[in-house]
């Protein structure tokens, strides 16, 4: 069935997915396109990292359980099976490491006219970054 996955910056539509409770399986191609993890003989690889694939992660149709991968990586996952939308976040460990480096985490957000601005655009100036809300 078709499932929308929020992994990177843009939503992906995964046509041959299977969802069951809090578990989600994607075809190898969808997995690669959506998450960047590629199935190789060594296991699942992305960049320099490879993770051995447990047989339990692969179903009878050769789909790979991306939720098991996420759990291994410490990634938070939210599955809304009723709406067939799944969101994957960044691990707490990774967020903490980024903060403890004291380098302000970069981000890109649009202004009122839709133009994107990144924090790194302002390197070289002191920045007062503050938040508010319309509510």
């Amino acid at each position, binding site marked *: 069935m078709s499932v929308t996955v929020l992994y990177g910056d843009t939503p992906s539509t995964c046509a041959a997915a299977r969802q069951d409770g809090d578990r989600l399986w994607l075809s190898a191609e969808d997995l690669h396109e959506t998450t960047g993890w590629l199935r190789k003989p060594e296991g699942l690889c992305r960049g320099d990292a490879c993770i051995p694939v447990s047989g339990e992660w692969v179903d009878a149709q050769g789909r790979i359980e991306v939720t098991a991968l996420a759990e291994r990586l410490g990634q938070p996952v939210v599955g809304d099976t009723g709406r067939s939308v799944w969101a994957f976040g960044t691990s707490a460990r990774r967020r903490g490491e980024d903060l403890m480096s004291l380098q302000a985490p970069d981000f890109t957000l649009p202004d009122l006219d839709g133009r994107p601005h990144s924090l790194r655009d302002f390197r070289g*100036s002191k920045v007062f*970054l503050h938040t508010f809300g319309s509510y």
Partner: protein
Amino acid sequence: MYDELREQGLVVIAVALDAGGADAVRNRILCPDLAERPDALRTMMGWSDELWSRAAPPTYPCLIDTEHLLAELYQMTNVPMAVWIDEQGRIVRPTESAGFGEGIRKMDPATFEIPADELGLLVSNRSTYVDALRDWVRRGAESPFALAPDEVRRRMRLPDADDVLAATHARLGQYLHRIGDGEGAKEHFRHAARIVPGKWPYLRQSMVLDPDLIGQLNTAPEFWAAASASEKGQLYPPIDMPGIRPH
């Protein structure tokens, strides 16, 4: 309030944590009935005369964070909160209340009236905070208000599993809002608020995605009940800065 500091080279980035997007924010900062908002509110929020009279929309970057990404990246638990970042992109003051405080608890949600002593303290503390900011802009690393790395790390609140899970719900909520599923969006922001009750933007957001509620400031009864019932220090952690007095 920050215009003088901008002239001295400070970049002020204002980010709206708002799934309502540009429309909601435009309505808020160029709010048609702003003139009808009570003086008490205006004083409390520190809005400048130009902003109040709608003569001058902000000229600094005003960004929209529909997913509440900054709540996750910087552990913002409420608005307004701020982080000070130096020219090398290093955090010199981690997330803290941007000169605001718990005096808001004493505000009457219907009239925005607030006891004079609480209002006075909010104004005084904000003045202290802005003075500190001014000092940093002028003196940079020499300023005592720019904290040493060890102190920044000591003060930092790091995200835990609940924080990143709530952020993922917010991400899903924002997506659903974007594709027109308002009920689904609210449901996920409610999940986020339940998982991390201390992050108030999630709770607010779960309530104000209805178009006719856009611009209503903190006045939803459910929100006010939750805020009033929260423990001291839960709304706005006290600012750890010399001269700031607690509520």
